[in-house]
């Protein structure tokens, strides 16, 4: 549930809502960072890297690697996600010298990953996928994302849950790219509106409208799948 921060306006003698901040559980726990224990923070890792210490970049990869992989897997599928991650960090390696800190390192890496995924999903990427042996266009690249069954639930419930998730992933995949990116970044990756705007490079108002339209389209897609 959203938490409201209340402030007292002394001049008017009444309480007024100054801002509503959404605190969603998934935003804080969307990703588990494998390198969290020895993570020194963005600034220290960056300064290490810029001073020539290789360890700084390795820490960045360990801390943000899973996060970038998650986004890439949701965009292009798990089979190509690792390639996207490698391209992302290779670009980041060459571009970190120009990183000015105007955005967070997290959104900067997300933006690179999104661009690499778009390139892979583009015309050349589709052509390349046609010639990859052992993979047909009918294969579901997201099939391996189906998570393991909940041990607390019954087999029937697990089957229903799995079916719903497969259907939902298919509906998300069927969204137009601009809406899909917004929905994935906000609802699946847990980024705030500001962060989504930074990653997509669009104003916050555009993020709001894309999210609204994307969710509406997602609902329609699900209805079509059920029907």
């Amino acid at each position: 549930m959203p938490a409201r921060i209340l402030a007292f306006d002394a001049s008017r003698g009444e309480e007024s809502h100054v801002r509503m901040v959404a605190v969603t559980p998934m935003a804080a726990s969307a990703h588990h960072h494998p390198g969290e224990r020895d993570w020194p923070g963005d600034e220290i890792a960056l300064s290490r890297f810029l001073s020539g210490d290789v360890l700084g970049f390795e820490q960045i990869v360990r801390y943000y690697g899973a996060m970038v992989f998650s986004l890439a897997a949701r965009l292009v599928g798990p089979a190509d996600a690792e390639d996207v991650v490698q391209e992302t960090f290779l670009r980041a390696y060459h571009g970190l010298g120009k990183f000015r800190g105007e955005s967070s390192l997290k959104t900067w890496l997300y933006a690179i990953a999104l661009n690499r995924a778009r390139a892979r999903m583009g015309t050349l990427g589709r052509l390349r996928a046609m010639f990859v042996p052992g993979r047909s266009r009918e294969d579901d690249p997201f099939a391996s994302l189906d998570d393991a069954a909940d041990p607390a639930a019954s087999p029937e419930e697990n089957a229903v849950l799995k079916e719903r998730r497969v259907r939902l992933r298919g509906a998300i995949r069927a969204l137009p790219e601009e809406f899909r990116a917004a929905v994935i970044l906000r609802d699946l990756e847990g980024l705030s509106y500001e962060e989504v705007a930074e990653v997509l490079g669009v104003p916050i108002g555009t993020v709001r409208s894309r999210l609204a339209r994307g969710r509406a389209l997602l609902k329609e897609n699900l209805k079509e799948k059920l029907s």
Partner: protein
Amino acid sequence: MSARPSVPRLEGEELDLLISRALDGDLSPEETRDLETVLANDPAARRRKEELAGLVAEARALPAPAPPFALSTRVNSDVSEKTARGGSIFHRFGFYPPPGMAIGAMVVLGVVAVAITVMNPAPKRIAPTIAQRADGPVDVFFQEGARAKKAASAPSERVAAKIASKEKARDRGAAALSAPASEPSSAPASILEAKPAAVVASVAASNEPVLSAAAPQAAGGIAPASPAAPAPTVRAMRSAEVRSWSVAIRGGGARRWMLRRAPESRPSAASAPASSFRVTLDAEGRVTAVRALDARAVQPALLEFVRGLVFAPVGSVAGNAVGSVADGFAGEQKAKDERTDALSEKKTDKTAKNPSEIEVEVSAR
């Protein structure tokens, strides 16, 4: 009388936008009140909000894909491998070139090199005329003149000439060794001394693209391109009566004049643009006398050019020893003086007892 509060009408995308923002907690208090009013009065809107809320909750509940094992290690090793060649070096100096920069720099350098080459072409190495290869020696071949031609008409000599021509290729190397033309005091010199007027020379291969290739032939005493190289010539060669000279033409004269072999049948003066000269050389190859063979007037500069020619015996042609034109034409007064001194000394020089005569043809460029 109480006024009923106005209910805002929200439909379609506007309603979806408010519901979407409400699900994210992004609405202001006023917008929240408006939405709550709409939802309280519109069951369809309420139902839509519930559907969207369930959808968003379900999407947020999707588990994050687990990264494959040792992803970070693979990524790190891949990055370090692909940046090991130059990127890390640049990196240590605070320079972060984009991946395509090296290729782009090479392309730009290539384009610049091609542009420079095209805009400033190098001087042509293969010139259509002598002047541009005047730094190399022009070989001169002495042949037995009128006497040899006369003897060549004898049938017995023709037979001998045929035999000799068959042996020519075999003996060419031996002749080169047995007839060192660089020694003016050798046997040929004595023959020339006895019959100076009978020795006719021609400058060979002066307009052929095989100047360097002419050198071994010169050593053998064969004028390969000359139509007047009949069998008696070969006989003369074998009897060591053939001498070879070379001359290098440099400087302004080379740019203005073109030295050719004198043609066997001289064209008429009206049609020939060239001037022919009979040049008398001393044993050291210096010009001692020049006689114009054409009736027409000769330019003083051309005469000066011919007088300035200095021939060198083939065999002693090496480096600076190559006979060269002391280019009085170009105004080198010092060289003129030296040449004048040499010519005056020549009159009394006892070494000038082997005069030779060659015929050259000089034409303006």
